[in-house]
Each structure stands twice: as C-alpha cells, then as structure tokens.
C-alpha cells in the first residue's frame, strides 16, 4: 500500500520529493476527502450538527457513501420523536445496541417535551434515563460525529437537537493475549502484546502500578487518525527525552500510519543509519522494564509490537530472559552475543581477507585442508562468499514468507542444496559452507528484533572491503562504523554509552550483569538520575525510621 504525505492541499508521494511544486498529483484518498468536504460540509460553514436530523443523516450518508458496512437505523420513540442510530456493522455489540439503546428508546414514553419541538442544548433525558451504558460522549460537530463512528461507537441522533450522542458499544474482534512467539523466554512471563491498544495499555499498566506511569495519547496520520500512546514513567525518565519524543510525534507528517516501522523512521534521530536507535518488543514485561529504566514506549493501535527508545548499542544485546537468569550465566551469554555479532558482521569477510591476503595467518594444516577443499572451486573466494551469502539470505527470507506447510520441504531443500549438493557440484567449498552457516547462526544470537538483520546488510560492504584490501579493509570498515556509532544519538543519548562516554552505573548492566541487589543506582546515561536518587533517599528515610522493611 502506498502512503502519501500531505503538504497543504497538494498530496505528494513520500518517496518522490522531486515532484514537490511541479504538477499536482491527485490520488484517490484526497479525492475522497475533497468530496466529503463538498457534499457533506458545504451547508454548514462551521461544520456543526444541525437541529434537523435528516440534514445530519444526509451529511453522514454522503460521507459514508460507498461504505457498505455502515448502518443507518431510523425509528420513532414511543412519544413520537424521531431518532436514528448510525454505526458500523461488526464493530458494535448488537445485543447491547438492541437492549440498552433501541429497546429503551422505543419504550420511552414520557412526553417531557413536545415531539417536534427543537431545543437548544443536549437532550439531557437521553443520558439520564435511556443510555444504560458506561461510556458516552456528546457530539456537536460533524467531524467529531464521523470520527466517533469510525472509532466503532454508535452515534445516536435525536431529531430536534443539535447534539448527538456517541455511545460506546464497541465489540471488536480482537485476538486474545497469547504467548510471545518471537521473543519467547523459558523462565519469564509468556504473554505478548496484541493488536488492540487498549489491551496493550492494560498489560503495561498492570505491571507498573504507579500514577507516575503516564500515557499520553496522540493521533497520528492526517487521515488515518491512528491512536498512538506515548508511555513513560514521570520522574524516572529524563524530561528532555519525553519533550523530544512528544515534539517528534507531533511533527509526524503522514497520511495513514499503520506500521510501527513507519513511526520509527519518523521518530528516530538518523533513519539512514544502519543501527536502529529504537527497538521493538512484543513483550509487556520488556516494555515495563524499559519504562522503569527510564526509557519511553510508543504503542500504536493495531500493532502487537511496541517501540522502545532511547536505545544504545549495549541495549541491543540484552534479552528479556537475562533478568530471569543468574548473573554469571547472563554475563557469559551476553559476551557470547557480542562475539556472535562480530562473527555475523565479519565472518565471511575475515575468511576472504585471510585466505586471499594473509595465508600466513592460518595454521599450516588448516591451510592445507582449506586448500584441498578449494581446489575444485572455479570462483575466487569473494564471489564464492557472496554467492553463498545470497543463497543463505534467499533461503532465510523465503523460509519466513513461505506458508508453514511448505517450510518443511524448504528446510530439506535448503540443507541439501546448500550443504551438500553445491559442494559436490564444485560450486562452493565446504569451508565456505561452514563459515556461512556459522555466520547465519550467529546473526540469530542478537535478541532484539530490529537489530537481528542489520548485521546481514552490513556484511556485504565488509566483504567487498575484505576482497579489495584484506584485513586492512576490514579494519577501515570497523573504524568507519565506530566513528558513525560514536556520533550517533538516540533521543540525545550517545549510542555507545555506557561504554563511551563511560558510566560506571550503566556498565554494571552492560556486558556483564551484576545481581539486581548491587545495582543500587540507576544508570545515569538515560535517566534523570540525580533527581530520582534524591527523591528515593527522601522517601526511604521515613520508611526506615518507622521500621518498615524496604523492598
């Protein structure tokens, strides 16, 4: 689906900035908006609802023209007054609608006002005596009426009143909270976020029971009006970071925001960088942990993934599981993750560089066996490595895109074709298979979803550098990457912190992980730490005096 960016009245394709200002490009969405404005809004300059119900209905009908799932229901109350409800089929609880609204309205007899009389102000009797629901909203503007209908509410119009009621009888089909599939852990909680933002909010709120947990709502997308929540814990998070996040969310200029990736690209400091400056998670506990560390989370309606920022390089190597394990093991596994990251980044390029430029670095016996294995291969090492890497990526990607039933067949084909046949055919040397498969495996060691595939993109430039300049080229590449990373910021937080600029508190939970008991202070590199620490000291003192045990 193509997305468009609105620039005033002129819609401009997001990818194609060149057309800006040349010829206006109409697209269907914009046409539709224009038509709503022509047909619907014209009679009402200010866009307010009319006293005449029929006029309102006509406007709504015009707006929803072509939407076959919209339902208009006109009926008269027992006292003769005309009413109508407007709702989307399938988004509303019909039973509730019938029993708690329509039935009660039809049975309403009190002739408190004459049936045709027009009245200023809202029909208070509706909310006082009829609506047997917990949530409703008074609507006086047409655009608000449209919005509330689109938000799966039922719009109740009463003839003679310029105020309508948006009643919450939402009953949307949602997926129930299920197990985390991608970031599954052995020991931690198993539940994962779902598509419904309300459920997701509760999942987080349930874990952090403090009024300091703020959830600011935004509407993103000039047309789509996607609900986006910025969640953070006031007092822990550095205020500058929230301000910055809020500013960037407000500045987001997009038509319809659906994917969390789109949001990230708008919110991130440097969307062109190969390193993600924000992470996504499907685990409520990871999200809660991030919040308690002084990060913020952005939840988008319809996405079971939540964006977490600011992130640093060290954050990419932490997994939810880490905090459910003992520190020694976590430290070991984290070191292994860093190591695996370097393997997945440099595996094939190191192979190319060493075999073609520095054969003296290989132990003689190993060199001889590599030599024998490579004797029949017609390609130079670089071509061989690129070929193998591309095949591996094809297998990996097609494995993901393929329906689950076929993927069994794929794994056989992948293993056979790559592992055995291509070696037997003399296309690829067995050593290359070893290198590529270790590289591939290593790339799965990185626990964070956004980072997982970054290494495989960076691998190819490194291979090119290795093929042209050997180890020297690889070192050059690493230096360029390091310089880039040192300059990178995630919402103002240096990307390489807590390593550089170094932060003693932060280092305690970086490559190693001290037991939580010894993490007395929060790391200073993301948080407003000084303040928190002071508050904590002030709060904890009286508690200690009164003899209550601390946590």
């Amino acid at each position: 689906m193509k997305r468009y960016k609105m620039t005033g009245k002129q819609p401009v394709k997001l990818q194609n900035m060149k057309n800006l200002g040349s010829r206006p490009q109409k697209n269907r969405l914009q046409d539709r908006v224009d038509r709503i404005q022509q047909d619907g809004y014209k009679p009402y300059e200010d866009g307010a609802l009319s006293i005449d119900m029929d006029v309102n209905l006509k406007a709504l009908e015009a707006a929803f023209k072509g939407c076959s799932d919209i339902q208009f229901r006109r009926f008269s109350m027992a006292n003769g007054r005309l009413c109508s409800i407007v709702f989307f089929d399938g988004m509303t609880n019909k039973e509730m609608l019938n029993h708690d609204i329509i039935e009660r309205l039809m049975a309403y007899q009190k002739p408190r006002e004459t049936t045709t009389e027009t009245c200023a102000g809202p029909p208070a009797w509706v909310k006082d005596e009829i609506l047997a629901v917990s949530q409703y909203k008074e609507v006086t503007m047409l655009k608000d009426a449209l919005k509330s209908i689109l938000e799966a509410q039922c719009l109740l119009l009463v003839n003679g009143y310029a105020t309508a009621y948006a009643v919450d009888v939402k009953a949307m089909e949602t997926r129930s909270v299920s197990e985390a599939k991608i970031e599954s852990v052995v020991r931690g909680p198993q539940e994962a976020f779902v598509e419904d933002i309300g459920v997701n909010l509760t999942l987080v709120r349930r874990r952090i029971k403090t009024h300091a947990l703020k959830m600011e709502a935004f509407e993103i997308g000039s047309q789509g009006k996607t609900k986006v929540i910025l969640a953070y814990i006031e007092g822990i998070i550095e205020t500058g970071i929230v301000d910055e996040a809020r500013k960037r969310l407000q500045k987001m200029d997009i038509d319809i925001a659906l994917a969390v990736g789109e949001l990230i690209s708008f919110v991130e400091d440097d969307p062109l960088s190969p390193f993600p400056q924000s992470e996504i998670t499907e685990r409520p506990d990871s999200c809660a942990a991030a919040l308690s560390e002084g990060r913020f989370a952005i939840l988008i309606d319809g996405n079971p993934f939540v964006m977490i920022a600011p992130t640093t390089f060290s954050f990419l190597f932490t997994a939810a599981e880490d905090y459910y394990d003992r520190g020694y093991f976590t430290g070991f596994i984290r070191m292994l993750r860093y190591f695996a990251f370097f393997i997945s980044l440099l595996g094939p390029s190191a192979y190319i560089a060493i075999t073609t430029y520095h054969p003296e670095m290989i132990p003689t016996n190993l060199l001889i066996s590599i030599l024998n294995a490579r004797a029949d291969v017609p390609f130079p090492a670089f071509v061989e490595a690129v070929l193998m890497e591309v095949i591996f990526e094809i297998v990996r990607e097609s494995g993901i895109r393929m329906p689950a039933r076929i993927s069994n067949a794929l794994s056989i084909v992948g293993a056979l074709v790559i592992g055995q046949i291509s070696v037997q055919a003399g296309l690829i040397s067995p050593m290359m298979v070893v290198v590529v498969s270790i590289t591939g495996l290593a790339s799965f060691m990185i626990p964070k979803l956004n980072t997982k595939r970054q290494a495989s993109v960076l691998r190819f430039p490194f291979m090119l550098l290795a093929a042209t300049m050997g180890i020297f080229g690889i070192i050059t590449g690493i230096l360029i990457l390091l310089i880039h990373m040192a300059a990178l910021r995630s919402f103002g937080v240096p990307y390489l912190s807590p390593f550089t600029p170094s932060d003693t508190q932060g280092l305690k939970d970086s490559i190693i992980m001290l037991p939580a008991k010894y993490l007395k202070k929060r790391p200073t590199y993301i948080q407003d730490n000084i303040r928190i620490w002071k508050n904590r000291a002030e709060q904890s003192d009286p508690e200690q005096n009164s003899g209550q045990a601390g946590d």
Partner: protein
Amino acid sequence: MKKTITLLLLLGCTAMCFGGCYGYNELGELGIVVVTGIDLNEDGKYQITVMAVYPVGGMMQQGEKSSTWIGSATGKSPMEASKNLRKYASKKLTWVQNDIVIIGEEAARAGLTEILDFFIRNRELRLRNHVLVSSGPAKDVMEAPADIENNLYSEMKGLISNMDEWSKAYVPTLLDFAKTFTEQDTGSVAGHIGIEKASGRTFSTYRERTTQHEGRGEGEELSFLSGSAVFHECSLKGFFSDYETRGYLWIVNKAKIGAVVVDLGDSKGSLAMETTSAKSDVRPVVTEDGVSMEIKLRVRGRVVENSCMDDLMDPAVIEKAEKEFAQSIVKEMKAAVKKAQKEYKADIFGFGDAIYRKEPDTWREIGKEWPELYAGIPVKYDVQVKLVRIGIIQNSIKVSN
C-alpha cells in the same frame, strides 16, 4: 543528497584503486612451501629444494595423487636458485607457511653466512622456522618417503615437537639460531636430521590384517631426528650425538624431561629416573689462578623403573640414588663440554657471554684471547638431583623367598 551519494561512490571507487588488490592471491593458485632444503653442489652452485603442498581437489580421494610437490633448482646464490624453481613450479610458490629449513652438510661446512642472510632477510620466511642440518645432502633427506603421516613435512613436525620428550635432540628456531650465530666468539647449535635404512624399525599396518604390513621394505629410507649440529665461526664443525646433546641441553637450561638410567646396588638391574624439571646456572669463578666456570644444576625427578633396589622408602637409599643420578648427568655434561672445547673449539654454552655479563672487568682482560683461552677453561660441576616420587609401587618386583 545527490552530491553525497556521488561523493561516497567516488570514494568507494578510489578506495578500490588504492587497495588495488595488492597482495591478492587466490588460495588455489598457491603452492605452499613447508620445507626448504639448501645444498652446495660440487660446482659451487647452490641447490634449493622445496617441499610444497599443492591442492589436490576436494572430491578427489586422498592418495590418488600426492599433495606434496618436491622441486629442486640450482643457482649462483640461494635467491637465484629459488627463483629458478619457477622453471618447474606450476603454482605460485609462497614461503609464508615454511616451517623447516634443512641445510645440507656440505653447504653447512662451507659456511652459512650467505644462506642464513637469505633466510633472515626474506620477509616471507618467518623467524620461527626450525633450522636443521642434514647429514648428507638436504635433497636426499627430503626425498625420503613419509612413514605414517600424509607427507614428510608432518612427519618432521612431529619429530621436532617430540624433542622435548627425551631431550636428546635439539632444534632451534631460526631466531634462536641467528642470535647465537651472529654473536662473536659464540658457537651455535642447530638440529640434526638424518636418514637411515628402515630395516623394519617402524611399520604401518592395516587394522584388519595386522600381519600384513605395507610400506617400507628393507631398502627404504626413514628419516630420524637426533643429536645436534655444532657451528663455529659460521661453518659446521661437527655433530653432537644424542648423549652429548643432552649434556649440552642440561648446561644451557633447555633439558626438562628425559630418562636417566644408572646401575645401582649389588644385584643386577638398574634404576631409572624421569626428570620433571631442571634448572641450571652457569657462572664464572675468578680466582688468582685464573677463570673457571661453575655449572650448577638442580634436577627434580621421579623413579620410573626399579629393578635393583629393595628399599626405596629408605632415605639413605634415595640419597645414594640421587648421587648416582647426579654423577650420570655430570658425565653427559662432561662429554659435551669436552667435545665442544677440545674438538670443535666452539663456545656453544655461552661461557664467554657469562663472563662478559657477570665479570666485565675480567672480560676486558681476557676477551681478546677468548678463542684460545676457551679450550682450556676448567669447568666445575655441581649437580644435585632430587627424587620426589617413587611411583605407585615401592620396591622392585621380585618373587619373594
């Protein structure tokens, strides 16, 4: 944006040009030299012989084609000879993995300066190469078939790595050898490799048919590593036997593990010790009579064989055994010193160096006459052996009366 991309592209292109793939070699094009031998022919030309590993192909069965290639070429200098090798070599020869340098006896006797200069100056040759002198031409040694390993190179590597196990052979690295070689008034020691008729010393057998052994017949040759070669004033003076080699290694603090066997007691039989550690110290003693050397050696060992002593738990017996072992070790050292002093006149033990370091004043007096003085320097031996373990059983196995 466009500018940046163009700039980056240009940078990438120039990076490739600058790199220029300098030093790029596909592995398949390389012939990896692992052993280099050098001889001096009768006509005064150097002959270089290399053993290189050639790729045989992944799918081909091993043994169908030999993966080692031995080539030989002559030239006026070692360098020219090595270039002339290309006359026969189908692969790009590279010495980066070379591990063993074998110098033919004739070449070694004629003088090593030119050869050693070639080996040390060359960037491709690592200083951790092992230096060996062959009795007879190096080419002959390199042509001997491998015993059980895939090629002679692996076999030689095995022999070299085993030298510490018995301390009766010594192979220095190129670096160690060159250090003593270039020092004035100091002799140097290299390894010694030879070939002998196999005559059934080793076999390789099939597991299924143990009676049928394949491989070397009576006439075939087998390479061995034993003893060492002694150099003085840039040329080979002679070979140390394995016995003398260990005497030498005791003195220069390089022998660690080895077996010492002595006859002890009245009954027939012997007591054997395996040394576990040894530490030596060579220091000059300056008296009014002149300079003498004192070699202090402390050895720790354990009893590994006992077929003569009944009461090893007795401290007196142990003490006696320790003394016998010490004497046996002194004998070895004496043999080495005698040969080096009298026959080769090569100060391989670094006596002069010890005087220079510890008694600089004395060295200033005698330094100039050192080559003449060396042969007559008296040497005192102070060896103490300590037996720390006697093994799992105590006394020798005997049928009790």
